[in-house]
């Protein structure tokens, strides 16, 4: 089971550190990261493996949401299925 995490907002230090710390805490493995900074805007997309995740998926979403709030960023965590369904035939 995999999920897609996106982080969008104003660039600052420690964004990836913060997110990966949370993921590590809950046993979520990062499989791929794509990231770029356009002018001041930070955008990151992460593909993670949630099959060993030690908390409920909805709790993980909530906890990442909080991380985002603390840093003034918008964080989304959604199941990979939805993107596959919409964009792959």
């Amino acid at each position: 089971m995999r999920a897609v995490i996106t982080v969008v907002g104003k660039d600052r230090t420690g964004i990836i550190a913060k997110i990966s710390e949370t993921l590590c805490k809950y046993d979520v493995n990062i499989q791929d990261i794509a990231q770029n900074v356009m002018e001041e805007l930070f955008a990151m997309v992460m593909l993670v493996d949630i099959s060993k995740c030690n908390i409920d998926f909805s709790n993980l979403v909530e906890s990442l949401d909080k991380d985002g709030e603390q840093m003034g960023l918008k964080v989304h965590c959604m199941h990979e299925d939805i993107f596959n369904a919409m964009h792959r035939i």
Partner: protein
Amino acid sequence: MINTGDILETIKMIEEEHLDIRTITMGISLRDLASDDINVLSDKIYDKITKRAEKLVATGESIEHELGIPIINKRISVTPIAMIGATTNANSYVKLAQALDRAAATTGVNFIGGFSALVQKGFAKGDEILINSIPEALAVTNNVCSSVNVASTKAGVNLDAIAKMGQIIKQTAENTKDNQSMGCAKLVVFANAVDDNPFMAGAFHGIGEPETVLNVGVSGPGVVQAAIRRAGDCSIGEVAEIIKKTAFKITRMGQLVGSLASERLGVPFGIVDLSLAPTPAVGDSVARILEEVGLETCGCCGTTAILAMLNDAVKKGGVMASSNVGGLSGAFIPVSEDEGMIAAVNAGVLSMEKLEAMTAVCSVGIDMVAVPGDTTAEVISGLIADEIAIGVVNNKTTAVRVIPAIGKTVGDSVEFGGLLGSAPIMPVSTHSPAKFINRGGRIPAPIHSLKN
């Protein structure tokens, strides 16, 4: 890895363009229930629905969290109650409506549909009792929806039923006048009603359906509008292409949610209804799509042509995205539930006559239209008859959901709140079709019903 652009597109659709699953609706057959005592039957109905749909809302919410896509409504539809009520010796089915209402409250769904009768060819035992119970039933319940199918392409038009429904709508408005005549917002008169419609107020569990089934209705007018806006100047053929692609993506989402929900609930997956269902929120309007394509205001000349193209493109895009398509499948044009439609009526551009023309090329009919409270029952019946004729002759579903707003007239508006929105009162011809309506009987089925 999935393309970053695709990921951001999906998130934008949900966050900014109101993409959502409008409803997952569980159909439950009540055909095994019978009793000559209406109290016993009420308990049986309540027990069966609450048992079958026990986990519907919780399952819907868990999928919502997992996928990150909002599922706005969880609903239930049941076998038309006229058929079940007919086993009793009661002369009113209000108690059955109350049992449905209790079941809706217990399961946590926001609407339950199926307080219905199918009378396209005539009234069987139970049908007239049910129809006569509608005004009281809709006044004493909160979440029950009612529908009556008065015509079909195969059977013709039951004019007696149309005459009756004019009176029933008036009576329902009167009974709920302290609440904006709200009862009428939960009452639909159909031609060619479909068995697997997930949308309210017209959903019921058809007689050819399995024991239980799960149907999904998707939504996304805002997404379509935004895609057309981004495309800028291009030919109408390209606009149709953009709509097709967008409809495909929206429908795939419905298919995913439906198959997940059906798997977890252990209920067979029925259909995805390929509909563009608006809400009163800004940026979630079908009228604004038409304007985006190139109308000054929805309702002006050109409206019907664009709507026909939109409706067709939505179907073409959606049909490949889902293994089973059904329900109403088309763009909805409910006036009170669409911010752009409300604005067009208030601007004096969108008239009842234009709405009627629009219903010939899309689903579903004269929907959520408020008319002056003093409109006579015969005029309402005439309005129903016209709309029903469009459905019967064109082999499609049409419907009427009008609200004669008691004590109000043209220039006023009624506020329903929530997804039902607010309806400006629209003028309707006051000249009387009474002689026609009171002739009664049945308009024969059109020649193209003879297909065999």
